[in-house]
Protein backbone atom coordinates (compact mmCIF):
# COMPACT_ATOMS: atom_id res chain seq x y z
CA UNK A 1 0.00 0.00 0.00
CA UNK A 2 1.24 3.48 -0.73
CA UNK A 3 2.27 5.52 2.27
CA UNK A 4 0.89 8.92 3.25
CA UNK A 5 2.74 11.74 4.96
CA UNK A 6 1.71 12.93 8.40
CA UNK A 7 0.67 16.29 6.93
CA UNK A 8 -1.64 14.52 4.53
CA UNK A 9 -3.22 12.54 7.36
CA UNK A 10 -3.79 15.72 9.39
CA UNK A 11 -5.30 17.58 6.47
CA UNK A 12 -7.43 14.60 5.50
CA UNK A 13 -8.86 14.16 8.98
CA UNK A 14 -9.46 17.89 9.47
CA UNK A 15 -11.42 18.17 6.24
CA UNK A 16 -13.36 15.01 7.07
CA UNK A 17 -14.34 16.31 10.50
CA UNK A 18 -15.44 19.70 9.17
CA UNK A 19 -17.51 18.20 6.35
CA UNK A 20 -19.20 15.69 8.66
CA UNK A 21 -19.91 18.35 11.28
CA UNK A 22 -21.49 20.61 8.66
CA UNK A 23 -23.73 17.85 7.28
CA UNK A 24 -24.90 16.79 10.73
CA UNK A 25 -25.61 20.31 11.95
CA UNK A 26 -27.66 21.13 8.88
CA UNK A 27 -29.64 17.92 9.30
CA UNK A 28 -30.20 18.53 13.00
CA UNK A 29 -31.39 22.07 12.42
CA UNK A 30 -33.79 21.26 9.60
CA UNK A 31 -35.32 18.32 11.47
CA UNK A 32 -35.59 19.99 14.86
CA UNK A 33 -39.08 21.53 14.42
CA UNK A 34 -40.51 18.12 13.47
CA UNK A 35 -38.84 16.43 16.42
CA UNK A 36 -40.04 19.06 18.86
CA UNK A 37 -43.58 18.62 17.64
CA UNK A 38 -43.37 14.85 18.13
CA UNK A 39 -42.15 15.27 21.70
CA UNK A 40 -45.03 17.67 22.40
CA UNK A 41 -47.60 15.30 20.94
CA UNK A 42 -46.12 12.47 22.98
CA UNK A 43 -46.40 14.55 26.14
CA UNK A 44 -50.03 15.34 25.36
CA UNK A 45 -50.73 11.64 24.79
CA UNK A 46 -49.20 10.83 28.17
CA UNK A 47 -51.23 13.51 29.95
CA UNK A 48 -54.40 12.26 28.29
CA UNK A 49 -53.54 8.67 29.26
CA UNK A 50 -53.40 9.74 32.92
CA UNK A 51 -57.08 10.73 32.74
CA UNK A 52 -57.81 7.40 31.03
CA UNK A 53 -58.31 8.80 27.56
CA UNK A 54 -56.67 6.87 24.78
CA UNK A 55 -55.25 8.96 21.99
CA UNK A 56 -53.08 8.52 18.93
CA UNK A 57 -50.50 10.83 17.42
CA UNK A 58 -53.21 12.03 15.03
CA UNK A 59 -55.88 13.09 17.52
CA UNK A 60 -53.82 13.85 20.64
CA UNK A 61 -53.68 17.61 20.05
CA UNK A 62 -57.42 17.82 19.39
CA UNK A 63 -58.35 15.71 22.45
CA UNK A 64 -55.89 17.62 24.62
CA UNK A 65 -57.54 20.91 23.70
CA UNK A 66 -60.94 19.39 24.39
CA UNK A 67 -60.28 17.89 27.83
CA UNK A 68 -57.54 20.01 29.39
CA UNK A 69 -59.31 23.19 30.36
CA UNK A 70 -56.71 24.94 32.45
CA UNK A 71 -53.06 24.68 33.37
CA UNK A 72 -50.78 26.71 35.59
CA UNK A 73 -47.67 26.49 37.71
CA UNK A 74 -47.68 26.67 41.51
CA UNK A 75 -44.83 27.27 43.94
CA UNK A 76 -43.97 25.25 47.04
CA UNK A 77 -46.40 27.29 49.14
CA UNK A 78 -49.25 26.53 46.78
CA UNK A 79 -49.63 29.99 45.27
CA UNK A 80 -50.06 30.25 41.51
CA UNK A 81 -47.00 31.59 39.70
CA UNK A 82 -47.64 33.95 36.82
CA UNK A 83 -45.82 33.91 33.54
CA UNK A 84 -44.74 30.26 33.44
CA UNK A 85 -46.28 27.89 30.92
CA UNK A 86 -47.06 24.62 32.71
CA UNK A 87 -46.68 22.61 29.52
CA UNK A 88 -43.15 23.88 28.95
CA UNK A 89 -41.90 22.99 32.44
CA UNK A 90 -39.17 20.36 32.35
CA UNK A 91 -39.62 18.17 35.45
CA UNK A 92 -36.05 16.94 35.25
CA UNK A 93 -34.74 20.46 35.77
CA UNK A 94 -37.34 21.27 38.44
CA UNK A 95 -36.48 18.22 40.53
CA UNK A 96 -32.83 19.26 40.54
CA UNK A 97 -33.75 22.59 42.18
CA UNK A 98 -34.39 23.03 45.92
CA UNK A 99 -38.08 22.78 46.82
CA UNK A 100 -38.40 26.55 47.39
CA UNK A 101 -37.53 27.36 43.78
CA UNK A 102 -39.46 24.58 42.08
CA UNK A 103 -42.15 25.23 39.50
CA UNK A 104 -44.89 22.67 40.05
CA UNK A 105 -47.21 22.30 37.06
CA UNK A 106 -50.91 21.53 37.46
CA UNK A 107 -53.20 20.57 34.59
CA UNK A 108 -56.94 20.62 35.11
CA UNK A 109 -59.26 18.55 32.98
CA UNK A 110 -63.01 18.20 32.69
CA UNK A 111 -64.26 14.75 31.67
CA UNK A 112 -67.45 13.96 29.77
CA UNK A 113 -69.44 13.94 33.05
CA UNK A 114 -68.27 17.49 33.85
CA UNK A 115 -66.08 16.22 36.71
CA UNK A 116 -62.81 18.00 37.42
CA UNK A 117 -59.47 16.19 37.62
CA UNK A 118 -56.16 17.59 38.77
CA UNK A 119 -53.24 16.19 36.79
CA UNK A 120 -49.84 16.39 38.45
CA UNK A 121 -46.55 15.43 36.83
CA UNK A 122 -44.19 13.15 38.77
CA UNK A 123 -40.52 12.46 38.12
CA UNK A 124 -38.08 10.07 39.78
CA UNK A 125 -35.38 7.46 39.41
CA UNK A 126 -35.76 3.87 38.22
CA UNK A 127 -33.03 1.26 38.01
CA UNK A 128 -31.29 2.36 34.79
CA UNK A 129 -32.53 5.88 34.29
CA UNK A 130 -35.34 8.30 34.99
CA UNK A 131 -38.98 7.28 35.36
CA UNK A 132 -41.73 9.87 35.08
CA UNK A 133 -45.42 10.17 34.56
CA UNK A 134 -48.68 11.90 35.41
CA UNK A 135 -51.10 11.25 38.24
CA UNK A 136 -54.65 12.55 38.03
CA UNK A 137 -56.70 13.12 41.17
CA UNK A 138 -60.45 13.42 41.50
CA UNK A 139 -61.85 16.73 42.69
CA UNK A 140 -61.58 15.59 46.35
CA UNK A 141 -57.80 15.83 45.79
CA UNK A 142 -57.21 12.41 47.34
CA UNK A 143 -58.68 9.68 45.16
CA UNK A 144 -56.56 8.73 42.17
CA UNK A 145 -58.46 9.01 38.91
CA UNK A 146 -55.76 7.59 36.68
CA UNK A 147 -52.01 7.33 36.17
CA UNK A 148 -49.53 7.10 33.36
CA UNK A 149 -45.87 6.17 33.77
CA UNK A 150 -43.02 6.23 31.28
CA UNK A 151 -39.38 5.28 31.59
CA UNK A 152 -36.21 5.72 29.64
CA UNK A 153 -34.63 2.29 29.73
CA UNK A 154 -36.01 -0.05 32.39
CA UNK A 155 -35.57 -3.78 31.79
CA UNK A 156 -38.17 -5.05 29.30
CA UNK A 157 -40.51 -7.55 30.93
CA UNK A 158 -39.49 -6.46 34.46
CA UNK A 159 -39.15 -2.78 35.36
CA UNK A 160 -40.55 -1.69 32.02
CA UNK A 161 -43.90 -3.17 33.08
CA UNK A 162 -44.63 0.09 34.93
CA UNK A 163 -45.58 1.50 31.53
CA UNK A 164 -48.31 -1.13 31.05
CA UNK A 165 -51.98 -0.60 31.74
CA UNK A 166 -52.11 -3.58 34.11
CA UNK A 167 -49.72 -1.84 36.46
CA UNK A 168 -51.18 1.63 36.05
CA UNK A 169 -54.82 0.58 36.48
CA UNK A 170 -54.06 -0.71 39.98
CA UNK A 171 -53.79 2.90 41.13
CA UNK A 172 -57.30 3.89 40.09
CA UNK A 173 -59.46 4.53 43.17
CA UNK A 174 -56.57 4.52 45.66
CA UNK A 175 -56.26 7.38 48.13
CA UNK A 176 -53.22 9.54 48.88
CA UNK A 177 -54.68 10.91 52.15
CA UNK A 178 -55.89 8.61 54.94
CA UNK A 179 -59.14 9.03 56.91
CA UNK A 180 -57.46 11.44 59.32
CA UNK A 181 -56.42 13.61 56.41
CA UNK A 182 -52.72 12.77 56.71
CA UNK A 183 -50.67 12.42 53.54
CA UNK A 184 -49.74 8.74 53.05
CA UNK A 185 -49.15 8.57 49.27
CA UNK A 186 -49.81 5.26 47.54
CA UNK A 187 -47.15 2.76 48.49
CA UNK A 188 -45.86 0.41 45.82
CA UNK A 189 -45.29 -2.82 47.76
CA UNK A 190 -43.08 -5.76 46.88
CA UNK A 191 -44.80 -7.78 44.13
CA UNK A 192 -47.82 -9.66 45.47
CA UNK A 193 -47.70 -8.38 49.06
CA UNK A 194 -50.11 -5.44 48.89
CA UNK A 195 -53.23 -6.00 50.98
CA UNK A 196 -56.06 -6.36 48.48
CA UNK A 197 -58.46 -4.23 50.53
CA UNK A 198 -55.98 -1.47 51.30
CA UNK A 199 -56.72 1.90 49.77
CA UNK A 200 -53.10 3.03 50.04
CA UNK A 201 -51.12 0.13 48.54
CA UNK A 202 -50.57 -1.42 45.13
CA UNK A 203 -48.49 -4.40 44.03
CA UNK A 204 -45.06 -3.67 42.65
CA UNK A 205 -43.50 -5.75 39.91
CA UNK A 206 -41.89 -9.06 40.86
CA UNK A 207 -38.32 -8.95 39.60
CA UNK A 208 -38.59 -5.18 39.11
CA UNK A 209 -38.07 -4.26 42.75
CA UNK A 210 -35.82 -1.26 42.22
CA UNK A 211 -38.06 0.23 39.56
CA UNK A 212 -41.12 -0.35 41.78
CA UNK A 213 -39.32 1.35 44.67
CA UNK A 214 -38.46 4.20 42.32
CA UNK A 215 -42.13 4.68 41.47
CA UNK A 216 -42.98 4.50 45.18
CA UNK A 217 -40.48 7.23 46.08
CA UNK A 218 -41.39 9.30 43.05
CA UNK A 219 -45.07 9.38 44.04
CA UNK A 220 -44.28 10.16 47.66
CA UNK A 221 -41.77 12.94 46.89
CA UNK A 222 -43.61 14.64 44.07
CA UNK A 223 -47.16 14.49 45.44
CA UNK A 224 -45.96 15.69 48.86
CA UNK A 225 -44.75 18.97 47.35
CA UNK A 226 -48.32 19.72 46.25
CA UNK A 227 -49.83 19.51 49.78
CA UNK A 228 -49.87 23.32 50.31
CA UNK A 229 -51.57 23.71 46.95
CA UNK A 230 -54.24 21.16 47.95
CA UNK A 231 -54.84 23.12 51.17
CA UNK A 232 -55.31 26.33 49.20
CA UNK A 233 -57.84 24.72 46.88
CA UNK A 234 -59.81 23.20 49.77
CA UNK A 235 -59.92 26.54 51.61
CA UNK A 236 -61.33 28.36 48.63
Amino acid at each position, binding site marked *: *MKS*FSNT*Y*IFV*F*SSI*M*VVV*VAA*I*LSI*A*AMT*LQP*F*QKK*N*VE*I*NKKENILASINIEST*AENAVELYDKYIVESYVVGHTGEVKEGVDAFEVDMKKEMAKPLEERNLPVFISLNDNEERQYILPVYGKGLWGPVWGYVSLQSNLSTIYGTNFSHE*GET*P*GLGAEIATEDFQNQFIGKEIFNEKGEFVSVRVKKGGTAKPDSKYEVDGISGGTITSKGVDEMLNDCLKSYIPYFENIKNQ
Partner: protein
Amino acid sequence: MNKEKEPLFSAKNLKLLREPLNDSNPITVQVLGICSALAITVQLKPAIVMALSVAFVMAVANVVISLLRKSIPPRIRIIVQLVVIASLVILVDQILKAFLFEISKQLSVFVGLIITNCIIMGRLEAFALANKPWPSFLDGLGNAAGYGVILIIVAFFRELLGSGTILDYQVIPQGVYNFGYENNGLMILPPMALIVVGIIIWIQRSRNKKLIESN
Protein backbone atom coordinates in the same frame (compact mmCIF):
# COMPACT_ATOMS: atom_id res chain seq x y z
CA MET B 1 -20.41 3.55 -20.79
CA ASN B 2 -20.23 0.07 -19.43
CA LYS B 3 -19.91 -1.60 -22.83
CA GLU B 4 -16.19 -2.08 -22.66
CA LYS B 5 -16.41 -2.88 -18.96
CA GLU B 6 -18.70 -5.46 -17.43
CA PRO B 7 -22.46 -4.83 -17.44
CA LEU B 8 -24.10 -3.38 -14.32
CA PHE B 9 -25.78 -6.62 -13.38
CA SER B 10 -23.16 -9.12 -14.48
CA ALA B 11 -23.16 -12.59 -12.96
CA LYS B 12 -20.36 -11.50 -10.67
CA ASN B 13 -22.26 -8.47 -9.42
CA LEU B 14 -25.46 -10.40 -8.93
CA LYS B 15 -23.55 -12.89 -6.85
CA LEU B 16 -22.68 -10.03 -4.48
CA LEU B 17 -26.38 -9.52 -3.92
CA ARG B 18 -27.32 -13.19 -3.68
CA GLU B 19 -24.55 -14.72 -1.64
CA PRO B 20 -25.27 -12.94 1.66
CA LEU B 21 -28.87 -14.13 1.48
CA ASN B 22 -27.80 -17.73 1.88
CA ASP B 23 -24.22 -19.02 1.54
CA SER B 24 -22.57 -16.22 3.48
CA ASN B 25 -25.48 -14.79 5.45
CA PRO B 26 -24.10 -12.34 7.99
CA ILE B 27 -26.25 -13.61 10.84
CA THR B 28 -26.68 -17.33 10.31
CA VAL B 29 -23.34 -18.15 8.71
CA GLN B 30 -20.93 -15.45 9.86
CA VAL B 31 -22.84 -15.01 13.15
CA LEU B 32 -22.42 -11.21 13.20
CA GLY B 33 -24.88 -8.59 14.40
CA ILE B 34 -26.62 -11.00 16.76
CA CYS B 35 -27.06 -8.40 19.51
CA SER B 36 -29.52 -6.25 17.59
CA ALA B 37 -31.25 -9.32 16.22
CA LEU B 38 -32.13 -10.27 19.79
CA ALA B 39 -33.20 -6.85 20.89
CA ILE B 40 -35.54 -5.50 18.27
CA THR B 41 -37.32 -8.58 16.95
CA VAL B 42 -40.18 -8.64 19.46
CA GLN B 43 -42.42 -7.06 16.85
CA LEU B 44 -42.31 -7.00 13.09
CA LYS B 45 -42.55 -3.25 12.53
CA PRO B 46 -39.40 -2.17 14.41
CA ALA B 47 -37.57 -5.08 12.81
CA ILE B 48 -38.48 -3.84 9.33
CA VAL B 49 -37.47 -0.27 10.15
CA MET B 50 -34.22 -1.55 11.65
CA ALA B 51 -33.52 -3.61 8.53
CA LEU B 52 -34.15 -0.60 6.29
CA SER B 53 -31.98 1.65 8.44
CA VAL B 54 -29.12 -0.84 8.36
CA ALA B 55 -29.54 -1.22 4.59
CA PHE B 56 -29.30 2.55 4.12
CA VAL B 57 -26.27 2.92 6.39
CA MET B 58 -24.49 -0.08 4.93
CA ALA B 59 -25.06 0.78 1.26
CA VAL B 60 -24.15 4.45 1.62
CA ALA B 61 -21.15 3.78 3.86
CA ASN B 62 -19.87 1.19 1.40
CA VAL B 63 -20.14 3.65 -1.49
CA VAL B 64 -18.52 6.51 0.43
CA ILE B 65 -15.61 4.40 1.62
CA SER B 66 -15.21 2.89 -1.83
CA LEU B 67 -15.09 6.36 -3.43
CA LEU B 68 -12.48 7.48 -0.91
CA ARG B 69 -10.57 4.21 -0.90
CA LYS B 70 -7.54 5.61 -2.73
CA SER B 71 -7.27 8.71 -0.56
CA ILE B 72 -7.87 7.20 2.87
CA PRO B 73 -4.55 6.85 4.69
CA PRO B 74 -4.38 3.19 5.80
CA ARG B 75 -3.14 4.20 9.24
CA ILE B 76 -6.40 5.96 10.12
CA ARG B 77 -8.78 3.92 7.98
CA ILE B 78 -10.69 2.42 10.93
CA ILE B 79 -11.33 5.91 12.29
CA VAL B 80 -12.50 7.12 8.90
CA GLN B 81 -14.85 4.14 8.63
CA LEU B 82 -16.24 4.83 12.07
CA VAL B 83 -16.80 8.51 11.31
CA VAL B 84 -18.68 7.67 8.11
CA ILE B 85 -20.83 5.03 9.83
CA ALA B 86 -21.48 7.15 12.89
CA SER B 87 -22.60 10.20 10.94
CA LEU B 88 -24.92 8.13 8.76
CA VAL B 89 -26.42 6.51 11.84
CA ILE B 90 -26.98 9.89 13.49
CA LEU B 91 -28.73 11.03 10.31
CA VAL B 92 -31.00 7.98 10.38
CA ASP B 93 -31.71 8.51 14.07
CA GLN B 94 -32.63 12.17 13.53
CA ILE B 95 -34.89 11.33 10.59
CA LEU B 96 -36.67 8.59 12.56
CA LYS B 97 -37.18 10.96 15.47
CA ALA B 98 -38.68 13.54 13.14
CA PHE B 99 -40.96 11.36 11.06
CA LEU B 100 -41.39 7.96 12.77
CA PHE B 101 -41.41 8.95 16.42
CA GLU B 102 -43.26 5.89 17.78
CA ILE B 103 -40.87 3.47 16.12
CA SER B 104 -37.88 5.52 17.11
CA LYS B 105 -39.05 5.21 20.73
CA GLN B 106 -39.27 1.44 20.38
CA LEU B 107 -35.87 1.14 18.75
CA SER B 108 -34.42 3.65 21.26
CA VAL B 109 -30.72 2.95 21.78
CA PHE B 110 -30.53 0.28 19.12
CA VAL B 111 -30.49 2.82 16.29
CA GLY B 112 -27.36 4.27 17.85
CA LEU B 113 -25.97 0.79 18.24
CA ILE B 114 -26.04 0.29 14.45
CA ILE B 115 -22.66 2.04 14.70
CA THR B 116 -21.24 -0.97 16.46
CA ASN B 117 -22.95 -3.49 14.20
CA CYS B 118 -19.98 -5.61 13.18
CA ILE B 119 -21.52 -6.45 9.81
CA ILE B 120 -21.14 -2.88 8.59
CA MET B 121 -17.52 -2.40 9.57
CA GLY B 122 -16.75 -5.91 8.42
CA ARG B 123 -18.01 -5.14 4.93
CA LEU B 124 -16.19 -1.79 4.75
CA GLU B 125 -12.93 -3.39 5.79
CA ALA B 126 -13.29 -6.55 3.72
CA PHE B 127 -14.95 -5.23 0.59
CA ALA B 128 -15.41 -1.49 0.09
CA LEU B 129 -11.75 -0.62 0.71
CA ALA B 130 -10.70 -2.78 -2.22
CA ASN B 131 -13.55 -2.48 -4.71
CA LYS B 132 -15.25 0.03 -6.99
CA PRO B 133 -18.35 1.94 -5.78
CA TRP B 134 -20.99 0.00 -7.74
CA PRO B 135 -19.98 -3.49 -6.57
CA SER B 136 -19.57 -2.05 -3.07
CA PHE B 137 -23.09 -0.66 -3.20
CA LEU B 138 -24.45 -4.07 -4.23
CA ASP B 139 -22.38 -5.79 -1.57
CA GLY B 140 -23.80 -3.43 1.05
CA LEU B 141 -27.36 -3.97 -0.10
CA GLY B 142 -26.87 -7.73 -0.30
CA ASN B 143 -25.50 -8.03 3.20
CA ALA B 144 -28.15 -5.71 4.60
CA ALA B 145 -30.79 -7.85 2.90
CA GLY B 146 -29.26 -11.00 4.35
CA TYR B 147 -29.37 -9.39 7.78
CA GLY B 148 -32.87 -7.98 7.27
CA VAL B 149 -34.36 -11.25 6.06
CA ILE B 150 -33.31 -13.06 9.22
CA LEU B 151 -34.49 -10.16 11.38
CA ILE B 152 -37.90 -10.20 9.72
CA ILE B 153 -38.30 -14.00 9.93
CA VAL B 154 -37.41 -13.96 13.62
CA ALA B 155 -39.69 -10.99 14.33
CA PHE B 156 -42.55 -12.64 12.41
CA PHE B 157 -42.50 -15.72 14.63
CA ARG B 158 -41.89 -13.80 17.83
CA GLU B 159 -44.76 -11.41 17.23
CA LEU B 160 -47.12 -14.16 16.02
CA LEU B 161 -46.47 -16.54 18.91
CA GLY B 162 -45.69 -13.94 21.56
CA SER B 163 -48.49 -11.44 20.96
CA GLY B 164 -50.79 -13.18 18.46
CA THR B 165 -50.47 -10.23 16.07
CA ILE B 166 -48.72 -9.42 12.80
CA LEU B 167 -47.80 -5.76 12.30
CA ASP B 168 -50.15 -5.00 15.22
CA TYR B 169 -53.14 -6.68 13.55
CA GLN B 170 -54.69 -9.46 15.60
CA VAL B 171 -54.33 -12.60 13.47
CA ILE B 172 -55.08 -15.28 16.03
CA PRO B 173 -58.87 -15.14 16.39
CA GLN B 174 -60.49 -14.60 19.78
CA GLY B 175 -62.18 -18.01 19.45
CA VAL B 176 -58.85 -19.76 19.77
CA TYR B 177 -58.17 -17.91 23.02
CA ASN B 178 -61.58 -18.98 24.29
CA PHE B 179 -60.47 -22.58 23.87
CA GLY B 180 -57.60 -21.91 26.27
CA TYR B 181 -54.84 -20.88 23.88
CA GLU B 182 -52.46 -18.36 25.37
CA ASN B 183 -49.75 -16.14 23.92
CA ASN B 184 -46.32 -17.49 24.71
CA GLY B 185 -44.78 -14.87 26.98
CA LEU B 186 -41.37 -16.49 26.57
CA MET B 187 -41.31 -15.42 22.90
CA ILE B 188 -41.21 -11.78 23.99
CA LEU B 189 -38.02 -12.26 26.00
CA PRO B 190 -34.62 -11.97 24.26
CA PRO B 191 -33.49 -15.61 24.75
CA MET B 192 -36.18 -16.82 22.37
CA ALA B 193 -34.66 -14.75 19.57
CA LEU B 194 -31.47 -16.74 20.03
CA ILE B 195 -33.41 -19.99 19.88
CA VAL B 196 -35.33 -18.92 16.76
CA VAL B 197 -32.05 -17.88 15.09
CA GLY B 198 -30.65 -21.26 16.13
CA ILE B 199 -33.57 -23.07 14.49
CA ILE B 200 -33.07 -21.03 11.29
CA ILE B 201 -29.36 -21.94 11.26
CA TRP B 202 -30.27 -25.60 11.76
CA ILE B 203 -32.76 -25.62 8.87
CA GLN B 204 -30.37 -23.70 6.62
CA ARG B 205 -27.43 -25.98 7.32
CA SER B 206 -29.40 -29.14 6.79
CA ARG B 207 -30.57 -27.90 3.38
CA ASN B 208 -27.42 -26.22 2.12
CA LYS B 209 -24.69 -28.76 1.30
CA LYS B 210 -21.97 -26.11 1.12
CA LEU B 211 -22.39 -25.25 4.78
CA ILE B 212 -22.08 -28.79 6.09
CA GLU B 213 -18.68 -29.15 7.70
CA SER B 214 -16.90 -32.38 6.78
CA ASN B 215 -14.99 -33.09 9.97
